[in-house]
């Protein structure tokens, strides 16, 4: 589904991603773990071109995303993204947050979008918040809305950039629950996270990144039970206690 070839990204002299090759298959749940500064968020943000790669190509469903002539808006409509800090639009109600993009990109009429919003809000148990503003929601609720907002575009792929890192501990569960349901539903997902439990339970493949490289990858059982790379062993010993 996504083919990443030779992807490099540097900010000034700082090389953040160093010649990454990856292929993400439809239905896969790829979980990216690694210490901070390892380039995992940058890798994710390159996939929908929020960061412009310095070198290399990314192909999504046969379309080259990194081609300067590519219609990036069209491509992004098929890739949902969830941010660490939710980034809900504070000047709009929850319903407007969800329906704005489907309506403005002419994917749906306002009525269809409203129906979609209602259905999705029901799925995450936030029907009664439709006319509230983001400021009135808890962090966990905001992030569930952010997921719904991305889903309203009916994406083929969902990108999660540390979706639970800014949450109070007691709210992490409700967000992971929504993500698990999404995974069970067959959505292709790329998740950058520090939630090792989630990676082990939901991931179909885990990538361990450090210093701009994918140091080790494999099935969650192998990564967590039989880590080969010394950096991964060190990382896991620090985060799993």
């Amino acid at each position, binding site marked *: 589904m996504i083919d990443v070839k030779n992807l490099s990204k540097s900010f000034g002299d700082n090389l953040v991603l160093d010649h990454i090759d990856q292929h993400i298959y439809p239905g896969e749940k790829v979980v990216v773990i690694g210490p901070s500064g390892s380039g995992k968020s940058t890798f994710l943000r390159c996939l929908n071109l929020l960061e412009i790669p310095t070198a290399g190509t990314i192909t999504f469903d046969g379309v080259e995303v990194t081609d300067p002539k590519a219609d990036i808006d069209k491509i992004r409509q098929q890739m*949902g993204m969830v*941010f660490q800090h939710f*980034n809900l639009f504070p000047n709009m109600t929850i319903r407007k947050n969800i329906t*704005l993009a489907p309506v*403005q990109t002419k994917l749906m009429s306002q009525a269809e979008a409203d129906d979609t919003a209602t259905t999705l809000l029901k799925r995450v148990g936030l029907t009664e918040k439709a006319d509230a503003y983001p400021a009135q929601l808890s962090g966990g609720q905001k992030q569930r809305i952010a997921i719904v907002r991305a889903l309203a575009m009916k994406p083929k792929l969902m990108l999660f950039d540390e979706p639970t890192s800014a949450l109070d501990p007691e709210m992490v569960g409700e967000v992971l629950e929504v993500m698990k349901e999404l995974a069970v539903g067959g959505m292709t997902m790329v998740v950058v996270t520090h939630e090792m439990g989630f990676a082990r339970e939901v991931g179909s493949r885990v990538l361990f990144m450090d210093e701009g490289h994918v140091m080790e990858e494999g099935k969650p059982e192998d990564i967590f039970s039989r880590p080969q790379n010394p950096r991964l062993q060190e990382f896991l010993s620090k985060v799993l206690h």
Partner: protein
Amino acid sequence: MGLAQTYELWRELMLQGDASWWQEFFVRFYQAFLENNRWQQYLEGVGTTLLVTAMALILGVVLGVVVAMVRTAHDQQRPGQRNFLLGVINFICKVYVTVIRGTPMMVQILIMGLVIFASSRNFTMVGTLTLGINSGAYVAEIIRGGLMSLDPGQMEAGRSLGLNYLDTMRFIVIPQAFKAILPALGNEFIILLKDTSMISVIGGQELIYFARNILNRTFDAMFPLVGSACIYLVLVLIFTWLQGKLERRLRQSDRR
């Protein structure tokens, strides 16, 4: 005994040096505002002042929005994909802001009135145009500051949903930026209102123009000038109050 007769009587006293201070005050007040229905001239001046302010404000905001959009769009381009035309327009905008902010308003008015539009007789319009162009440069920087101060995550969220740059600006960035810059915009509006007084140097017929005319008739500077100052102050107070109301209303909407 009517006001006019009282005035005649007390003026005689004043010329003989026999008037008390409050009689003199009345005479000078009468000369400055009531004699020959001079209050009508102040009223006309205030009308022109408000009209000039409104027109200059519209011009300033239009110019400011355009310049701010160009400058922001230019700065937010993807590296390696810079648009040449946008670069040229951006450069022009930068020169405009630099020149306007780098030279005194009074000099700009004199140059516009006596050099560029030297043959024009419509001094008020030339003055209005100058004020609008001047205000545009400041408004542009205010708006640009507002757009830049917004969390970049808002733009990213809009774009990641597949909205294009202009739609993201229109629905997400600008409405939030507007609320943030309202105090600064209100301040700019008040400065503009007061700066209209400067167009009288090229013959723009606003409040100070009439006040100076009356001063030249009566040879009394204090009453026309202090009176005009009071009028400006009252106008500014009214607009400050209105601005405060608008801000409170906008703030309410995000705490519902």
